Protein backbone atom coordinates (compact mmCIF):
# COMPACT_ATOMS: atom_id res chain seq x y z
CA UNK A 1 0.00 0.00 0.00
CA UNK A 2 1.00 3.64 -0.40
CA UNK A 3 2.52 5.24 2.62
CA UNK A 4 -0.46 7.50 3.32
CA UNK A 5 -4.03 6.39 2.60
CA UNK A 6 -6.77 9.00 2.93
CA UNK A 7 -10.44 8.03 3.18
CA UNK A 8 -13.53 10.23 3.23
CA UNK A 9 -16.88 9.02 4.52
CA UNK A 10 -20.24 10.48 3.47
CA UNK A 11 -23.25 9.54 5.52
CA UNK A 12 -26.28 10.93 7.22
CA UNK A 13 -26.46 11.77 10.91
CA UNK A 14 -27.46 8.64 12.84
CA UNK A 15 -26.16 6.06 10.34
CA UNK A 16 -22.87 5.60 12.15
CA UNK A 17 -20.40 6.93 9.56
CA UNK A 18 -18.41 8.58 12.35
CA UNK A 19 -18.38 5.36 14.37
CA UNK A 20 -17.35 3.40 11.27
CA UNK A 21 -14.42 5.79 10.69
CA UNK A 22 -13.34 5.34 14.30
CA UNK A 23 -13.63 1.54 14.03
CA UNK A 24 -11.55 1.60 10.86
CA UNK A 25 -8.93 3.70 12.65
CA UNK A 26 -8.99 1.16 15.49
CA UNK A 27 -8.55 -1.81 13.18
CA UNK A 28 -5.66 -0.18 11.30
CA UNK A 29 -4.07 0.87 14.59
CA UNK A 30 -4.16 -2.75 15.71
CA UNK A 31 -2.13 -3.76 12.65
CA UNK A 32 0.62 -1.36 13.76
CA UNK A 33 -0.27 1.67 11.64
CA UNK A 34 -0.36 5.35 12.47
CA UNK A 35 -3.94 6.51 12.21
CA UNK A 36 -6.30 9.45 12.31
CA UNK A 37 -10.08 9.16 12.57
CA UNK A 38 -12.11 12.33 12.83
CA UNK A 39 -15.53 13.67 11.94
CA UNK A 40 -16.25 17.05 10.46
CA UNK A 41 -18.72 18.47 12.92
CA UNK A 42 -21.45 20.65 11.52
CA UNK A 43 -24.85 21.49 12.90
CA UNK A 44 -25.29 17.76 13.43
CA UNK A 45 -28.73 16.20 13.55
CA UNK A 46 -30.43 13.00 12.45
CA UNK A 47 -30.53 12.69 8.68
CA UNK A 48 -28.28 15.63 7.82
CA UNK A 49 -25.29 14.93 5.54
CA UNK A 50 -22.12 14.36 7.56
CA UNK A 51 -18.51 13.74 6.65
CA UNK A 52 -15.85 11.76 8.49
CA UNK A 53 -12.23 11.06 7.64
CA UNK A 54 -9.41 8.55 8.05
CA UNK A 55 -5.71 8.77 7.46
CA UNK A 56 -3.67 5.56 7.69
CA UNK A 57 0.09 5.52 7.33
CA UNK A 58 3.28 3.64 8.14
CA UNK A 59 4.79 6.89 9.41
CA UNK A 60 3.61 9.41 12.03
CA UNK A 61 0.91 11.74 10.64
CA UNK A 62 1.27 15.44 11.43
CA UNK A 63 -1.17 17.05 8.99
CA UNK A 64 -4.36 18.30 10.67
CA UNK A 65 -6.78 19.31 7.94
CA UNK A 66 -9.87 17.87 6.31
CA UNK A 67 -9.24 15.58 3.34
CA UNK A 68 -9.76 17.13 -0.08
CA UNK A 69 -8.09 14.57 -2.36
CA UNK A 70 -8.97 11.19 -0.85
CA UNK A 71 -7.76 7.84 -2.13
CA UNK A 72 -11.12 6.31 -1.24
CA UNK A 73 -14.64 7.55 -0.65
CA UNK A 74 -17.35 5.62 1.20
CA UNK A 75 -20.97 6.60 0.62
CA UNK A 76 -23.13 5.19 3.40
CA UNK A 77 -26.42 6.52 1.95
CA UNK A 78 -27.03 6.69 -1.80
CA UNK A 79 -29.55 9.53 -1.52
CA UNK A 80 -26.45 11.68 -0.91
CA UNK A 81 -25.44 11.13 -4.55
CA UNK A 82 -28.13 13.64 -5.52
CA UNK A 83 -27.02 16.41 -3.17
CA UNK A 84 -23.32 15.97 -2.23
CA UNK A 85 -20.36 16.06 -4.62
CA UNK A 86 -19.06 12.74 -3.31
CA UNK A 87 -16.29 12.31 -5.92
CA UNK A 88 -14.88 15.80 -5.29
CA UNK A 89 -11.08 15.50 -5.43
CA UNK A 90 -11.26 11.67 -5.36
CA UNK A 91 -8.10 10.25 -6.94
CA UNK A 92 -8.69 8.27 -10.12
CA UNK A 93 -6.19 5.71 -8.90
CA UNK A 94 -8.52 5.14 -5.95
CA UNK A 95 -12.09 3.94 -5.64
CA UNK A 96 -15.56 4.80 -4.38
CA UNK A 97 -17.71 2.36 -2.41
CA UNK A 98 -21.44 3.01 -2.37
CA UNK A 99 -24.23 1.47 -0.35
CA UNK A 100 -26.84 1.16 -3.08
CA UNK A 101 -29.10 -1.05 -5.19
CA UNK A 102 -29.13 1.43 -8.08
CA UNK A 103 -27.88 0.29 -11.47
CA UNK A 104 -24.62 1.19 -13.17
CA UNK A 105 -26.34 3.72 -15.46
CA UNK A 106 -27.75 5.71 -12.52
CA UNK A 107 -24.42 5.68 -10.71
CA UNK A 108 -22.52 6.76 -13.80
CA UNK A 109 -24.86 9.75 -14.11
CA UNK A 110 -24.28 10.82 -10.53
CA UNK A 111 -20.53 10.27 -10.25
CA UNK A 112 -19.67 13.13 -12.60
CA UNK A 113 -17.45 11.15 -14.94
CA UNK A 114 -15.33 9.64 -12.15
CA UNK A 115 -12.82 7.38 -13.90
CA UNK A 116 -11.62 5.31 -10.95
CA UNK A 117 -13.10 2.06 -9.68
CA UNK A 118 -16.69 1.97 -8.43
CA UNK A 119 -17.83 -0.66 -5.94
CA UNK A 120 -21.32 -1.22 -4.61
CA UNK A 121 -22.85 -3.17 -1.79
CA UNK A 122 -26.42 -3.55 -0.60
CA UNK A 123 -25.65 -2.81 3.04
CA UNK A 124 -29.37 -2.79 3.87
CA UNK A 125 -29.74 -6.39 2.72
CA UNK A 126 -26.60 -7.43 4.61
CA UNK A 127 -27.72 -5.64 7.75
CA UNK A 128 -31.31 -6.94 7.67
CA UNK A 129 -30.14 -10.52 7.07
CA UNK A 130 -27.58 -10.53 9.85
CA UNK A 131 -28.79 -7.97 12.41
CA UNK A 132 -32.47 -7.81 11.64
CA UNK A 133 -32.19 -4.01 11.67
CA UNK A 134 -30.76 -1.41 9.33
CA UNK A 135 -27.29 -0.38 10.56
CA UNK A 136 -25.28 0.29 7.40
CA UNK A 137 -21.99 1.21 9.09
CA UNK A 138 -20.69 -2.29 9.89
CA UNK A 139 -21.15 -3.62 6.32
CA UNK A 140 -19.63 -0.42 4.88
CA UNK A 141 -16.63 -0.74 7.18
CA UNK A 142 -16.03 -4.27 5.87
CA UNK A 143 -16.52 -3.08 2.30
CA UNK A 144 -13.87 -0.33 2.51
CA UNK A 145 -11.39 -2.68 4.18
CA UNK A 146 -11.86 -5.11 1.30
CA UNK A 147 -11.65 -2.45 -1.42
CA UNK A 148 -8.73 -0.47 0.03
CA UNK A 149 -6.85 -3.62 1.03
CA UNK A 150 -5.41 -1.83 4.06
CA UNK A 151 -5.17 -5.08 5.97
CA UNK A 152 -5.61 -8.83 5.59
CA UNK A 153 -9.24 -9.95 5.81
CA UNK A 154 -8.50 -12.50 8.52
CA UNK A 155 -6.68 -9.90 10.64
CA UNK A 156 -9.60 -7.55 10.20
CA UNK A 157 -12.15 -10.19 11.21
CA UNK A 158 -10.14 -11.15 14.28
CA UNK A 159 -9.71 -7.53 15.25
CA UNK A 160 -13.36 -6.63 14.83
CA UNK A 161 -14.40 -9.49 17.06
CA UNK A 162 -12.22 -7.98 19.80
CA UNK A 163 -13.56 -4.48 19.15
CA UNK A 164 -17.20 -5.58 19.26
CA UNK A 165 -16.64 -7.52 22.48
CA UNK A 166 -15.34 -4.32 24.00
CA UNK A 167 -17.84 -1.94 22.38
CA UNK A 168 -20.88 -4.10 23.08
CA UNK A 169 -19.80 -5.38 26.50
CA UNK A 170 -23.28 -4.52 27.78
CA UNK A 171 -25.08 -5.85 24.69
CA UNK A 172 -23.31 -9.16 23.92
CA UNK A 173 -26.33 -10.39 21.93
CA UNK A 174 -25.44 -8.08 19.01
CA UNK A 175 -21.83 -9.26 18.64
CA UNK A 176 -22.64 -12.37 16.60
CA UNK A 177 -24.89 -10.44 14.20
CA UNK A 178 -22.25 -7.78 13.64
CA UNK A 179 -19.60 -10.40 12.94
CA UNK A 180 -21.93 -12.09 10.44
CA UNK A 181 -22.57 -8.69 8.84
CA UNK A 182 -18.83 -8.23 8.36
CA UNK A 183 -18.31 -11.65 6.87
CA UNK A 184 -21.28 -11.32 4.52
CA UNK A 185 -20.28 -7.77 3.48
CA UNK A 186 -16.78 -8.92 2.56
CA UNK A 187 -18.45 -11.30 0.08
CA UNK A 188 -21.16 -8.95 -1.14
CA UNK A 189 -19.10 -5.91 -2.18
CA UNK A 190 -18.88 -5.91 -5.99
CA UNK A 191 -17.01 -3.89 -8.57
CA UNK A 192 -19.19 -2.48 -11.34
Amino acid at each position, binding site marked *: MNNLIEIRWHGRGGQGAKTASLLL*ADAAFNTGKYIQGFPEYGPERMGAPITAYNRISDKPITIHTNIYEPDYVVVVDDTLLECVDVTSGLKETGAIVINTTKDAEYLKQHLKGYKGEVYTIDAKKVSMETLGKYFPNTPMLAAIVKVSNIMEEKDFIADMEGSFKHKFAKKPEVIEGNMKAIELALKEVKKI
Partner: protein
Amino acid sequence: MSIRERLSGNEAVATAMKQINPDVVAAFPITPSTEIPQYFSTFVANGSVDTEFVAVESEHSAMSACIGAQAAGARAMTATSANGLSLMWEMIYIASSLRLPIVLNLVNRAVSGPLNIHNDHSDAMGVRDSGWIMLFSENNQEAYDNTLMAHRIAENKDVQLPLMVCQDGFITSHAIENIELEEDSEVKNFVGEYKPEHYLLNRKEPIAVGPLDLQGYLFEHKAQQAEAMKKAKQVILDVAKDFEKWTGRHYGLFEEYKLDDSEIAIVCMNSTAGTAKFVVDKLREKGVKAGLLKIRVYRPFPGEEVAEALKNQKAIAVLDKSDSLNAIGGALFEDVVSSMYVNEENVPMCNYIYGIGGRDTTAEDIESVYEDLQKIAKTGKVEDPYRYLGLRREAK
Protein backbone atom coordinates in the same frame (compact mmCIF):
# COMPACT_ATOMS: atom_id res chain seq x y z
CA MET B 1 7.90 1.42 29.05
CA SER B 2 5.34 3.58 27.22
CA ILE B 3 2.01 2.10 26.22
CA ARG B 4 1.00 2.35 22.55
CA GLU B 5 -2.60 3.57 22.39
CA ARG B 6 -4.99 5.52 20.21
CA LEU B 7 -7.05 8.25 21.85
CA SER B 8 -8.71 11.53 21.02
CA GLY B 9 -7.27 14.70 22.53
CA ASN B 10 -10.08 14.83 25.08
CA GLU B 11 -9.57 11.17 25.99
CA ALA B 12 -5.84 11.82 26.36
CA VAL B 13 -6.42 14.70 28.79
CA ALA B 14 -9.04 12.76 30.77
CA THR B 15 -6.55 9.87 31.02
CA ALA B 16 -3.85 12.22 32.29
CA MET B 17 -6.28 13.57 34.89
CA LYS B 18 -7.15 10.04 35.96
CA GLN B 19 -3.48 9.21 36.42
CA ILE B 20 -2.86 12.47 38.31
CA ASN B 21 -5.88 11.70 40.53
CA PRO B 22 -6.32 15.30 41.78
CA ASP B 23 -8.12 16.03 45.05
CA VAL B 24 -10.86 18.10 43.42
CA VAL B 25 -12.27 18.51 39.92
CA ALA B 26 -15.00 21.12 39.49
CA ALA B 27 -16.34 21.53 35.98
CA PHE B 28 -19.31 22.53 33.87
CA PRO B 29 -19.72 21.02 30.39
CA ILE B 30 -19.20 23.07 27.23
CA THR B 31 -18.42 21.94 23.67
CA PRO B 32 -15.78 20.87 22.67
CA SER B 33 -14.27 20.18 26.13
CA THR B 34 -17.41 18.47 27.51
CA GLU B 35 -15.92 14.99 27.15
CA ILE B 36 -13.12 15.76 29.61
CA PRO B 37 -15.35 16.14 32.71
CA GLN B 38 -17.71 13.54 31.22
CA TYR B 39 -15.01 10.86 31.04
CA PHE B 40 -13.55 12.01 34.33
CA SER B 41 -16.90 11.70 36.10
CA THR B 42 -17.07 8.06 34.99
CA PHE B 43 -13.63 7.51 36.55
CA VAL B 44 -15.02 8.98 39.76
CA ALA B 45 -18.17 6.85 39.53
CA ASN B 46 -16.31 3.58 38.97
CA GLY B 47 -13.77 4.32 41.68
CA SER B 48 -10.62 4.56 39.57
CA VAL B 49 -9.90 7.94 41.17
CA ASP B 50 -10.77 9.25 44.62
CA THR B 51 -11.27 12.82 43.47
CA GLU B 52 -14.08 14.95 44.85
CA PHE B 53 -15.98 15.78 41.65
CA VAL B 54 -18.06 18.94 41.99
CA ALA B 55 -20.77 19.19 39.32
CA VAL B 56 -21.16 22.96 39.56
CA GLU B 57 -23.90 25.03 37.93
CA SER B 58 -21.64 27.33 35.88
CA GLU B 59 -18.04 27.92 34.87
CA HIS B 60 -17.81 30.87 37.24
CA SER B 61 -18.60 28.41 40.01
CA ALA B 62 -16.20 25.83 38.55
CA MET B 63 -13.26 28.21 38.86
CA SER B 64 -14.54 29.48 42.24
CA ALA B 65 -14.68 25.91 43.55
CA CYS B 66 -11.17 25.23 42.25
CA ILE B 67 -9.94 28.39 43.98
CA GLY B 68 -11.58 27.39 47.26
CA ALA B 69 -10.20 23.86 47.05
CA GLN B 70 -6.70 24.89 46.08
CA ALA B 71 -6.58 27.60 48.77
CA ALA B 72 -7.67 24.98 51.30
CA GLY B 73 -4.61 22.93 50.35
CA ALA B 74 -6.02 20.57 47.71
CA ARG B 75 -4.91 19.98 44.13
CA ALA B 76 -7.70 21.17 41.83
CA MET B 77 -8.31 20.78 38.10
CA THR B 78 -10.96 21.82 35.59
CA ALA B 79 -11.58 22.02 31.86
CA THR B 80 -13.49 24.43 29.66
CA SER B 81 -13.75 26.17 26.28
CA ALA B 82 -14.66 29.57 24.81
CA ASN B 83 -17.69 31.06 26.57
CA GLY B 84 -17.06 28.83 29.55
CA LEU B 85 -13.74 30.59 30.01
CA SER B 86 -15.49 33.93 29.45
CA LEU B 87 -17.80 33.16 32.33
CA MET B 88 -14.77 32.26 34.48
CA TRP B 89 -13.10 35.56 33.63
CA GLU B 90 -13.46 37.22 37.02
CA MET B 91 -12.15 34.15 38.85
CA ILE B 92 -9.31 33.53 36.37
CA TYR B 93 -7.60 36.69 37.63
CA ILE B 94 -8.34 35.84 41.24
CA ALA B 95 -6.80 32.36 40.85
CA SER B 96 -3.53 33.78 39.55
CA SER B 97 -3.34 36.72 41.96
CA LEU B 98 -3.91 34.35 44.91
CA ARG B 99 -0.99 32.33 43.50
CA LEU B 100 -3.03 29.12 43.33
CA PRO B 101 -1.50 26.50 41.03
CA ILE B 102 -4.81 25.27 39.58
CA VAL B 103 -4.55 23.33 36.31
CA LEU B 104 -7.11 23.99 33.58
CA ASN B 105 -7.44 22.21 30.24
CA LEU B 106 -8.66 24.70 27.68
CA VAL B 107 -9.99 23.11 24.51
CA ASN B 108 -9.77 26.12 22.23
CA ARG B 109 -12.95 27.34 20.59
CA ALA B 110 -14.18 30.62 19.11
CA VAL B 111 -15.77 32.96 21.64
CA SER B 112 -19.27 33.98 20.53
CA GLY B 113 -20.71 35.79 18.72
CA PRO B 114 -22.32 34.92 16.58
CA LEU B 115 -22.48 31.47 18.09
CA ASN B 116 -19.72 29.17 16.84
CA ILE B 117 -18.56 25.95 18.44
CA HIS B 118 -15.45 25.43 16.33
CA ASN B 119 -11.79 26.03 16.86
CA ASP B 120 -9.85 29.24 17.01
CA HIS B 121 -7.73 30.79 19.76
CA SER B 122 -9.92 33.74 20.74
CA ASP B 123 -10.69 32.15 24.12
CA ALA B 124 -7.02 31.71 25.06
CA MET B 125 -6.00 35.12 23.74
CA GLY B 126 -8.63 36.75 25.94
CA VAL B 127 -6.80 35.61 29.08
CA ARG B 128 -3.23 36.00 27.86
CA ASP B 129 -2.55 38.84 30.31
CA SER B 130 -4.25 37.24 33.32
CA GLY B 131 -1.12 35.76 34.90
CA TRP B 132 -1.69 32.12 33.94
CA ILE B 133 1.05 29.97 32.47
CA MET B 134 -0.17 28.87 29.02
CA LEU B 135 1.08 25.77 27.24
CA PHE B 136 -0.09 24.94 23.70
CA SER B 137 -0.31 21.41 22.26
CA GLU B 138 0.02 20.31 18.66
CA ASN B 139 -1.78 16.99 19.14
CA ASN B 140 -3.21 14.52 21.67
CA GLN B 141 0.30 13.46 22.75
CA GLU B 142 1.34 16.99 23.63
CA ALA B 143 -1.96 17.68 25.41
CA TYR B 144 -1.34 14.55 27.50
CA ASP B 145 2.33 15.33 28.16
CA ASN B 146 1.70 19.00 28.97
CA THR B 147 -0.99 17.94 31.46
CA LEU B 148 1.42 15.49 33.12
CA MET B 149 4.03 18.25 33.48
CA ALA B 150 1.53 20.94 34.55
CA HIS B 151 1.46 20.45 38.32
CA ARG B 152 5.23 20.20 38.68
CA ILE B 153 5.55 23.58 36.96
CA ALA B 154 2.61 25.36 38.56
CA GLU B 155 3.30 24.15 42.12
CA ASN B 156 7.03 24.91 42.09
CA LYS B 157 7.77 27.31 44.96
CA ASP B 158 9.40 29.80 42.59
CA VAL B 159 6.27 29.81 40.43
CA GLN B 160 2.98 29.14 42.26
CA LEU B 161 0.85 30.23 39.34
CA PRO B 162 -2.14 28.57 37.71
CA LEU B 163 -1.53 26.86 34.40
CA MET B 164 -3.67 26.13 31.37
CA VAL B 165 -2.99 23.47 28.76
CA CYS B 166 -4.48 24.40 25.38
CA GLN B 167 -5.36 22.19 22.43
CA ASP B 168 -7.46 22.77 19.31
CA GLY B 169 -11.16 22.04 19.69
CA PHE B 170 -12.42 19.22 17.43
CA ILE B 171 -9.23 19.23 15.31
CA THR B 172 -7.32 17.40 18.03
CA SER B 173 -9.89 17.11 20.85
CA HIS B 174 -12.14 14.86 18.73
CA ALA B 175 -9.58 13.19 16.46
CA ILE B 176 -8.42 9.67 17.30
CA GLU B 177 -4.65 9.43 16.82
CA ASN B 178 -1.77 7.29 18.04
CA ILE B 179 -0.39 8.21 21.44
CA GLU B 180 2.22 6.90 23.90
CA LEU B 181 0.82 6.69 27.44
CA GLU B 182 2.82 6.18 30.62
CA GLU B 183 2.14 3.73 33.45
CA ASP B 184 -0.15 4.97 36.25
CA SER B 185 2.43 4.37 38.97
CA GLU B 186 5.14 6.22 37.04
CA VAL B 187 2.84 9.19 36.49
CA LYS B 188 2.11 9.23 40.21
CA ASN B 189 5.83 9.28 40.98
CA PHE B 190 6.57 11.97 38.43
CA VAL B 191 3.75 14.31 39.46
CA GLY B 192 4.35 13.79 43.18
CA GLU B 193 2.27 14.99 46.09
CA TYR B 194 1.03 18.53 46.49
CA LYS B 195 2.63 20.08 49.55
CA PRO B 196 1.55 23.72 49.77
CA GLU B 197 3.55 25.98 52.07
CA HIS B 198 0.52 27.95 53.24
CA TYR B 199 -3.07 26.72 53.12
CA LEU B 200 -6.39 27.43 54.76
CA LEU B 201 -6.88 24.04 56.40
CA ASN B 202 -3.61 24.28 58.31
CA ARG B 203 -4.78 24.71 61.90
CA LYS B 204 -1.29 25.63 63.07
CA GLU B 205 -1.10 28.66 60.78
CA PRO B 206 -4.38 30.56 60.47
CA ILE B 207 -4.25 32.77 57.34
CA ALA B 208 -6.52 35.00 55.33
CA VAL B 209 -6.73 34.50 51.56
CA GLY B 210 -7.70 37.29 49.19
CA PRO B 211 -8.31 40.23 51.55
CA LEU B 212 -8.39 43.91 50.52
CA ASP B 213 -5.15 45.04 48.89
CA LEU B 214 -5.09 48.75 48.05
CA GLN B 215 -2.50 51.38 47.13
CA GLY B 216 -0.10 50.15 49.78
CA TYR B 217 0.82 46.73 48.36
CA LEU B 218 -1.21 45.61 45.33
CA PHE B 219 1.54 46.95 43.06
CA GLU B 220 4.17 44.88 44.89
CA HIS B 221 1.99 41.79 44.72
CA LYS B 222 1.56 42.26 40.96
CA ALA B 223 5.33 42.67 40.61
CA GLN B 224 5.77 39.38 42.49
CA GLN B 225 3.38 37.68 40.06
CA ALA B 226 5.41 39.08 37.17
CA GLU B 227 8.61 37.82 38.80
CA ALA B 228 7.10 34.34 39.24
CA MET B 229 6.13 34.35 35.57
CA LYS B 230 9.74 35.15 34.61
CA LYS B 231 11.05 32.36 36.85
CA ALA B 232 8.54 29.90 35.38
CA LYS B 233 10.57 29.72 32.17
CA GLN B 234 13.46 27.89 33.82
CA VAL B 235 11.13 25.69 35.85
CA ILE B 236 9.30 24.66 32.66
CA LEU B 237 12.65 23.67 31.14
CA ASP B 238 13.74 21.78 34.28
CA VAL B 239 10.50 19.82 34.40
CA ALA B 240 10.78 19.07 30.66
CA LYS B 241 14.27 17.71 31.25
CA ASP B 242 13.02 15.33 33.95
CA PHE B 243 10.12 14.39 31.69
CA GLU B 244 12.49 13.56 28.85
CA LYS B 245 14.63 11.42 31.15
CA TRP B 246 11.51 9.49 32.05
CA THR B 247 9.65 9.20 28.71
CA GLY B 248 12.27 10.05 26.08
CA ARG B 249 9.99 12.78 24.71
CA HIS B 250 11.70 16.15 24.40
CA TYR B 251 10.02 19.48 25.14
CA GLY B 252 11.38 23.02 25.13
CA LEU B 253 9.86 26.48 25.28
CA PHE B 254 9.13 26.04 21.58
CA GLU B 255 9.88 23.51 18.87
CA GLU B 256 12.23 24.36 16.02
CA TYR B 257 11.41 22.37 12.90
CA LYS B 258 14.12 22.53 10.23
CA LEU B 259 14.87 26.03 11.43
CA ASP B 260 18.66 25.75 11.71
CA ASP B 261 19.26 26.25 7.99
CA SER B 262 15.95 27.75 6.90
CA GLU B 263 15.61 31.15 5.22
CA ILE B 264 11.87 31.61 5.62
CA ALA B 265 9.89 30.61 8.68
CA ILE B 266 6.37 30.38 10.02
CA VAL B 267 5.58 30.89 13.71
CA CYS B 268 2.34 29.33 14.93
CA MET B 269 0.75 27.27 17.74
CA ASN B 270 -1.29 24.07 18.22
CA SER B 271 -2.44 21.76 15.42
CA THR B 272 -1.55 24.08 12.54
CA ALA B 273 2.10 23.42 13.36
CA GLY B 274 1.55 19.79 12.33
CA THR B 275 0.17 20.85 8.96
CA ALA B 276 3.07 23.30 8.60
CA LYS B 277 5.56 20.45 9.22
CA PHE B 278 3.90 18.50 6.41
CA VAL B 279 4.30 21.53 4.12
CA VAL B 280 7.91 22.19 5.20
CA ASP B 281 8.81 18.59 4.27
CA LYS B 282 7.14 19.02 0.88
CA LEU B 283 8.94 22.32 0.21
CA ARG B 284 12.30 20.90 1.32
CA GLU B 285 11.94 18.23 -1.37
CA LYS B 286 11.71 21.09 -3.88
CA GLY B 287 14.78 22.77 -2.40
CA VAL B 288 12.90 25.57 -0.62
CA LYS B 289 14.57 26.35 2.70
CA ALA B 290 11.43 26.56 4.79
CA GLY B 291 11.30 26.25 8.58
CA LEU B 292 8.84 26.38 11.46
CA LEU B 293 8.87 27.66 15.02
CA LYS B 294 6.03 26.20 17.06
CA ILE B 295 5.35 28.03 20.30
CA ARG B 296 4.70 25.64 23.18
CA VAL B 297 5.07 28.09 26.07
CA TYR B 298 3.01 31.16 25.22
CA ARG B 299 2.99 32.55 28.78
CA PRO B 300 5.67 33.24 29.92
CA PHE B 301 6.59 34.33 26.41
CA PRO B 302 10.15 33.23 25.59
CA GLY B 303 11.01 36.48 23.80
CA GLU B 304 14.79 36.37 24.00
CA GLU B 305 14.94 32.72 22.92
CA VAL B 306 12.47 33.26 20.06
CA ALA B 307 14.51 36.20 18.77
CA GLU B 308 17.69 34.13 18.92
CA ALA B 309 16.05 31.23 17.06
CA LEU B 310 14.63 33.46 14.33
CA LYS B 311 17.45 35.95 13.81
CA ASN B 312 18.91 34.31 10.70
CA GLN B 313 15.66 34.15 8.73
CA LYS B 314 15.16 36.34 5.69
CA ALA B 315 11.40 36.60 6.23
CA ILE B 316 9.00 35.48 8.96
CA ALA B 317 5.24 34.96 8.99
CA VAL B 318 3.39 34.77 12.30
CA LEU B 319 0.04 32.96 12.16
CA ASP B 320 -2.64 34.08 14.61
CA LYS B 321 -5.77 31.97 15.07
CA SER B 322 -7.47 34.93 16.70
CA ASP B 323 -7.88 38.46 15.43
CA SER B 324 -7.16 41.18 17.98
CA LEU B 325 -9.39 43.56 15.97
CA ASN B 326 -6.94 46.35 16.75
CA ALA B 327 -5.97 47.44 13.22
CA ILE B 328 -2.36 46.36 13.76
CA GLY B 329 -2.13 42.56 14.11
CA GLY B 330 -2.76 39.45 16.16
CA ALA B 331 -1.45 38.84 19.69
CA LEU B 332 1.24 36.31 18.78
CA PHE B 333 2.48 38.60 16.01
CA GLU B 334 2.84 41.49 18.44
CA ASP B 335 4.72 39.28 20.90
CA VAL B 336 7.14 38.04 18.23
CA VAL B 337 7.63 41.51 16.74
CA SER B 338 8.43 43.09 20.09
CA SER B 339 10.73 40.20 21.01
CA MET B 340 12.67 40.72 17.79
CA TYR B 341 12.80 44.51 18.21
CA VAL B 342 14.00 44.63 21.80
CA ASN B 343 16.62 42.00 21.00
CA GLU B 344 17.77 44.10 18.04
CA GLU B 345 16.98 41.54 15.39
CA ASN B 346 15.62 43.07 12.24
CA VAL B 347 13.87 40.55 9.98
CA PRO B 348 10.95 41.43 7.67
CA MET B 349 7.79 40.06 9.30
CA CYS B 350 4.15 39.72 8.45
CA ASN B 351 1.04 38.46 10.19
CA TYR B 352 -1.76 36.20 8.96
CA ILE B 353 -5.06 35.91 10.77
CA TYR B 354 -6.35 32.43 9.92
CA GLY B 355 -8.73 29.60 10.81
CA ILE B 356 -11.29 31.81 12.57
CA GLY B 357 -14.42 29.96 13.72
CA GLY B 358 -13.10 26.60 12.54
CA ARG B 359 -12.27 27.59 8.94
CA ASP B 360 -10.12 24.67 7.79
CA THR B 361 -6.52 25.71 7.14
CA THR B 362 -5.25 23.52 4.32
CA ALA B 363 -1.74 22.54 3.34
CA GLU B 364 -2.22 24.78 0.28
CA ASP B 365 -2.99 27.74 2.56
CA ILE B 366 0.25 27.19 4.46
CA GLU B 367 2.14 26.72 1.22
CA SER B 368 0.84 30.08 -0.02
CA VAL B 369 2.31 31.73 3.08
CA TYR B 370 5.75 30.28 2.30
CA GLU B 371 5.34 31.54 -1.29
CA ASP B 372 4.63 35.03 0.05
CA LEU B 373 7.69 34.74 2.31
CA GLN B 374 9.90 33.84 -0.64
CA LYS B 375 8.85 37.09 -2.32
CA ILE B 376 9.44 39.10 0.86
CA ALA B 377 12.85 37.46 1.34
CA LYS B 378 13.85 38.59 -2.14
CA THR B 379 12.80 42.24 -1.80
CA GLY B 380 13.16 42.64 1.96
CA LYS B 381 9.93 44.66 1.90
CA VAL B 382 6.58 44.01 3.57
CA GLU B 383 3.90 46.30 2.27
CA ASP B 384 0.88 44.98 4.14
CA PRO B 385 2.00 43.19 7.32
CA TYR B 386 -1.52 42.51 8.68
CA ARG B 387 -3.16 39.94 6.42
CA TYR B 388 -5.81 37.22 6.23
CA LEU B 389 -5.30 33.62 5.22
CA GLY B 390 -8.21 31.55 3.90
CA LEU B 391 -10.74 34.39 3.94
CA ARG B 392 -13.48 34.11 1.30
CA ARG B 393 -12.47 36.42 -1.48
CA GLU B 394 -15.82 38.22 -1.75
CA ALA B 395 -15.73 39.21 1.93
CA LYS B 396 -12.50 41.20 1.69
